[in-house]
């Protein structure tokens, strides 16, 4: 088990290292001078532009040797300094991101967990009932083929614009100031629901299909046939099959994290939900590269952390990782 975690952690550390390096390299190795690119494309007041240039020069330190620049970059990173936002100049990127992260997590975590849970349940049910199989399965394929933003757009249009049941944009009502009140909480929930639903539905389709296929596959496994040969009731066989099918579904969850995050980003953009996706859109429109790079690092860190959590869960439900009998699962 120790070896398993060591191996996993090794990969995550290496991945983080690679991600930071990419983050550092891209502005420096893309054609053109990054400082000039940023300045020319950012529409700033003249005095702001001046302090901006001074700041950029010091941050990039292009007159220093590359290895020095690289080390400085890491130094800043470890101090939590991701630079200063151009869009919200002169606020530090870290702060801007930290304010947005709770909103993204509030969408992403429940949507991911609930869709995974519900998808697995429905998928397993579909594997045993013909009529469910004939309804859930095609629906699942349509949902999983739907671009996240399109479902978000449709929901926003139908339930926000046409019927007016839900608000179309924002994280809470503009008429309210954040406070610990029931009214504010209600407003938060009201604004949260549609983006959540849209994320949930797309992800749900994928999990349901995956589970259905895995259960059918497990029911054809040798251990299932052996149990049936010994007269074990269908219930026991299905229980084993479901549990064993959860393992690849869990790995699937780890591998889908990036896609889910991407889904959350575009969903937030549709609903102008004040999470990381909204920041990304603003960063792109305002040529705010520091903000974009900061969001990139946050996403990477988040995905790696979630991966590690999933690894821990995996160890709990797959005995083979605990006994150290399994070689390569990475």
């Amino acid at each position, binding site marked *: 088990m120790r070896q398993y975690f060591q191996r996993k952690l090794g990969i*995550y550390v290496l991945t983080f290292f690679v991600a930071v390096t990419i983050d550092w390299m891209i502005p420096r190795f893309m054609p053109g001078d990054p400082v000039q690119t940023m300045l020319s494309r950012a529409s700033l007041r003249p005095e702001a532009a001046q302090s901006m240039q001074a700041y950029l020069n010091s941050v990039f330190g292009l007159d220093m040797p590359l290895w020095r620049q690289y080390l400085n970059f890491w130094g800043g990173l470890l101090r939590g300094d991701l630079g200063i936002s151009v869009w919200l100049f002169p606020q530090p990127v870290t702060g801007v991101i930290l304010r947005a992260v709770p909103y993204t997590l509030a969408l992403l975590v429940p949507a991911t967990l609930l869709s995974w849970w519900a998808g697995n349940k429905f998928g397993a049910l579909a594997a045993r009932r013909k009529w469910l199989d004939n309804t859930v399965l095609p629906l699942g394929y349509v949902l999983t*083929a739907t671009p996240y933003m399109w479902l978000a757009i449709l929901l926003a249009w139908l339930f926000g614009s046409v019927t007016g049941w839900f608000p179309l944009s924002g994280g809470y009502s503009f008429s309210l100031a954040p406070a610990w009140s029931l009214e504010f909480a209600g407003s938060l929930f009201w604004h949260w629901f549609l983006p959540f639903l849209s994320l949930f539905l797309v992800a749900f389709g994928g999990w349901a299909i995956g589970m259905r*296929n895995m259960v059918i596959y497990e029911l054809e496994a040798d251990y299932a046939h052996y149990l049936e040969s010994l007269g074990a009731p269908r219930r026991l066989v299905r229980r084993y099959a479901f549990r064993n099918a959860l393992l*690849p579904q869990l790995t*699937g969850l780890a591998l889908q994290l990036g896609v889910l995050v991407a889904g959350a980003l575009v969903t937030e953009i549709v609903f102008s939900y004040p999470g990381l996706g909204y920041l990304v859109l603003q960063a792109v429109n305002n040529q705010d*590269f520091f903000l974009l790079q900061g969001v990139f690092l946050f996403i990477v860190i988040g995905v790696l952390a979630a991966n590690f959590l999933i690894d821990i869960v995996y160890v709990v439900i797959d005995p083979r990782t605990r006994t150290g009998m399994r070689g390569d699962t990475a």
Partner: protein
Amino acid sequence: MSGPELKEELAVATPAAPPGAATAVAAGPVPRARGRGEVLYFARRNRKLVAGLAVVAGFLVVAAVGPLLTDHGPNDYVGPPSQPPSADFWFGTTTFGQDVFAQFTHGLRSTFLVGVLGGGLAGLIGMLIGFTAGYRGGVVDEVLNMLTNVVLVIPTLAVLLIVAAYLRVRGVVPEAIFIGLTSWPWVARAVRAQTFSLRTRDFVDLARLSGAGGRAIIVREIAPNMSSYLLMSGILLFGGAVLLAATLDFIGLGPTSGISLGLMMNNAVLWSALQLGMWWWFVPPGLGITAIVGSLYIMNVGLDEVFNPKLRKL
């Protein structure tokens, strides 16, 4: 590698593909079909495959012919603004008086281009790495496997975000190439796992004894034995590339000139089509993507049934 472990590898590797749809191919290496005739026989009779193929082919025709039906470009301001669908403008017009139908058909072209190019490149890289790692084994495998795992964990979209942001001029082709460069890992893993199991088989040994080189063995002996799997992986990669490109375009990092379906949705949201109820602006692009990708996934289920005798319904 023994049977159960191989199964595990595959089951683990495939869900990384476009969500869920991929697990259908997790059932392990598909035995080589017993001849072209039989495959065709089952293929023609498989409703999922035929229906999926028909939808995709339909969109392909629209993409090929559609742009020829209009004499203006997709971004030209040709009509009155914000018009619902009419005889003159089949899909209506945008806030700026652009022809949505023209945008849609041109956008379809970009979609197919990204899918073929991005998916194809990812498939090539995945196969190259998977075959090499699986066949060579040892240190080569260790290194390539590590590389695969790292790329697998890095959120693809996040990387594409910063790469695209720093590009001053963006086109569909570079976009497809970047997508191809980042979405290969699950293919590499699956191919590696299958190559592992195939390389110890008798016919591979025989080829090795008769003096065939590594590349020849992979191309002539190993790859043909997993051709059906590779075909299905290619389809999933195509769908994945299309969805990824749409996401990127929607964020505003799509092609700087020209049009794509993701960009259409981006513009629609940006210019308040939702609030204005201009459904004809944002429904077609999303519907197009969903229909194409969905049909591809359903085609894949059909293909799985065709290639895998166990799944054929009697």
